[in-house]
């Protein structure tokens, strides 16, 4: 099946199987390997991207369902060599260790602040409930997101 997706501002027209997951299309076909696959039950959120500005677990979407949509992956966040404020906040607060959950976590956090610019700690915990991390215990991730929110205010 034909599908045309705009990813990080670039238009990609492809022929894909109907069953191909969006996450595999991004990773294997378009070479955007930043978005990761961490589970097989849409539990972990490592595959989180933005679809038309809203966070989506790309393992739960078929590539063909993204036809005509605008996708933002982790590769689309930084501006050249300048990190996005959320990426800067994660770095400053040591909100990552192995980095595998990080692209999905950062995308989910960006989406969270987009919807809730001034969250409390409880809001951040609830907003990121769908993104699992095994390394950090979340303590510094929460700090990073609150820091980014504060910086944006």
């Amino acid at each position, binding site marked *: 099946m034909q599908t045309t997706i705009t990813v990080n501002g670039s238009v990609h027209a492809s022929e894909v*199987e109907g*069953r*191909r997951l969006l996450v*595999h299309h991004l*990773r*294997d076909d378009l*070479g*955007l*390997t*930043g*978005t*990761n*696959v*961490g*589970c*097989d*039950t849409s*539990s*972990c959120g*490592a595959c989180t991207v933005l679809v038309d500005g809203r966070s989506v677990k790309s393992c739960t979407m078929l590539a063909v369902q993204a036809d005509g949509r605008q996708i933002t*992956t*982790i*590769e689309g*966040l*930084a501006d050249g060599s300048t*990190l996005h404020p959320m*990426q800067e906040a*994660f*770095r*400053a607060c*040591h909100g*990552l*260790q*192995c*980095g*595998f*959950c*990080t*692209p999905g976590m*950062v995308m989910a956090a960006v989406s969270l602040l987009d919807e809730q610019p001034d969250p409390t*700690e409880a809001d*951040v*915990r*609830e907003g*990121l*409930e*769908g*993104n*699992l*991390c*095994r*390394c*950090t*215990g*979340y*303590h*510094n*991730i*929460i700090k990073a997101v609150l820091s980014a929110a504060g910086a944006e205010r």
Partner: protein
Amino acid sequence: MTVVGTRMVRKEDPELLTGESRFVDDLVIPGARWLAMVRSPHAHARIGSIDASEALAMPGVEAVLTGPDLRDAWVAPMPCAWPVTDDMGNPEHFPVALDKACYVGDIVAVVVADSRYHAADGVDGVVVDYEPLDVVVDLEDSLTDRVVIHDALGTNRSYTWELIPDPEAVDQAFASAVHVVKERYLQQRLIPAAMEPRGVAVVPQPHGGEFTLWSATQIPHVLKVMLTATAGVPEHKLRVVAPAVGGGFGSKLNVYAEELITLAVARQLRVPARWTEERGENAHATIQGRGQIQDIELAADADGKVTAVRVHLLADMGAYLQLVAPGIPLLGAFLYHGLYDVPAYSFTCTSVFTNKTPTDAYRGAGRPEATYAIERAMDALARTMGIGPDEVRRRNFIPTEAFPYNSAGGLVFDSGDYAPNLAKALDLVRWDERKAEQARRREAGDPVQLGLGISTYVEMCGLAPSRVLASLKYGAGGWEAAQVRVLPTGTVQVVTGATPHGQGHETTWSMLVADKLGVDTDDIEVLHSDTAISPIGMDTYGSRSLAVGGTAIVMAADQVVDKARTIAAHQLEVAEEDLDFAGGLFTVAGSPDKELSIQALAFEAFTAHDLPDGMEPNLHASVSWDPPNFVFPFGSHIAVVEIDTDTGHVELVDYVAVDDCGNQVNPLIVEGQIHGGIAQGVAQALFEEAVYDEDGILKNPTLMDYLVPSTMELPSFTLDHTTTPSPTNPMGAKGIGEAGTIASTPAVMNAVVDALSPYGITDIDMPATPERVWQAIQAAGDGSSNGGTP
């Protein structure tokens, strides 16, 4: 300006934050064949015919290989590098099963296809004829040999190992004890569940004879040796690379069937081959942690001073022994008396096989189990005596003046100062204030009860003195290697044998070398995880990389400075003693025109135009360092829980940790390690368990029902520290990577039991699910059903 001790942000972050890092599944390997594994759905079954015709007819499927097809690929069975006793039973097994499958997930065939989707399709097209056999999952049942798994052994018992230095002293202590505590605890199986599933990729050079293997592994150096020993690929032609690795926690410290299979298929078919694990596979086919029945007894005198500890463990090896699995229970063997001054000690462990996923190291590896048993038992002693859990610990701490301390198990604890550390934690958690709140709620019959739990721990890490490993029959050494090079244009490369997978090594080693050489951390590059680039090492596990690897690095850096000093003295025509070295510059007091930077000296060493007689060119130093002892971090953790007695729900509302890992290189990274460690230990107490039914089926192999905690299950943590330097290494540093996990599980369970003590409840099995807690409250009876005072 020194950087060691500062909260420097990590150098590794930009590539991880932007998705630029390459994990194994990110690698682009043109022409690679994708492998998928056909795994037994039975926990114990004879393998009959394997019909791959349907699979071979599918688009893209090129081959299906069975155990017999691959038998000639192996020169030895799968390795176990820790034969803990001379008579240890180690059943021979190969990457692809030959006659029997012994656990759900055991590989019986390999599909080779042109894409990951086609390989997965192929698995469904392989029809295996199984003859199911009786299954054994329970440890005590396994010990009876009602169902023997490995015919060649004739028994399920792999080994019994003892540490009983003075049996009479132990018997005497129990005979004359005023208080005796006798407890049984269950260490449930855990799934390590690193966020990155495993994966392997192999690129062969069929005519040249070389192989490059990438694996999501913690142990590229060890893996290389073991791949040679098992698959017969010559070691000098094998390059093993750990790319970016997404967490390990011990689960990527193994020699896995899939690594061997991918190598063998690439060799046989003369094409690149790769495999990536699915999460459901990970639950079955990646090693699990813990799995013990613990019996612990304490003998104590009238003052509550513990005079003896006696422990018996029954440990679950799973279906086959893995790389270091037999030794995991033994890593805790020396610590079941904790940080208490106990004169008499007895430890015995029997390990058995079951028809379940094999076990091996999982964060803490034997030491969380030990700390759990002693810390729960100490609370039991406190209850028996009617004294507080803080008081029973104070009465038993190894006194500060006793260090270095000769433990009853035969170790030398390097340094410790326990009482002030506990005092700090009690203060931080506002112990008295919370105890008053607890009393108020009990008095009021509040349905939400409060519980406080203490865990004071010591752990042994920085694995390890090689001679001690020899005495334990461990198959390798515990040294670490480093090279420090100042390049001709003045920047620095540090080569390490440690293999990071999230611990911030690049930042930490840069900080150490920056201070030693007087260079900027941005001018230092750390090279690691690739046997072509870092040829020598013992890799990362057991909280060893700073204590052992970091020491090798600072020693190499010192040697570089010494060599630079000798060249400077020669070229400046002064005595070495007359040279000062600061900020990367050698100067001579009183002679401002005489100075040479370390960068200039590196260029001098490179051109070798004017070096002292007999000196080798280049400003490099290489060190392999074998530690003389373990290091012994310690601390006090206190958990505060609220239990809704109507639903059984346990909420962790506050958590205080005061840890002592000696001198800290980067407190930001230290805290991160503690946070992550606490999360996993809390999870064992409250959320996680690999649940098997009587047929050996794993009931919760997905992240929907294996409850790795999310942001909602954990609070933010309150951390503080004390600093008691270690005499074991020049940095005075101890490991910290596993301490959070070691400490936290008993802190939480002690809090749960504390909250429920008005009901007379003294134990809840882990995890303390709402159902378990609620059932315990119901079983306790009076006072609970009418909402009155419990």
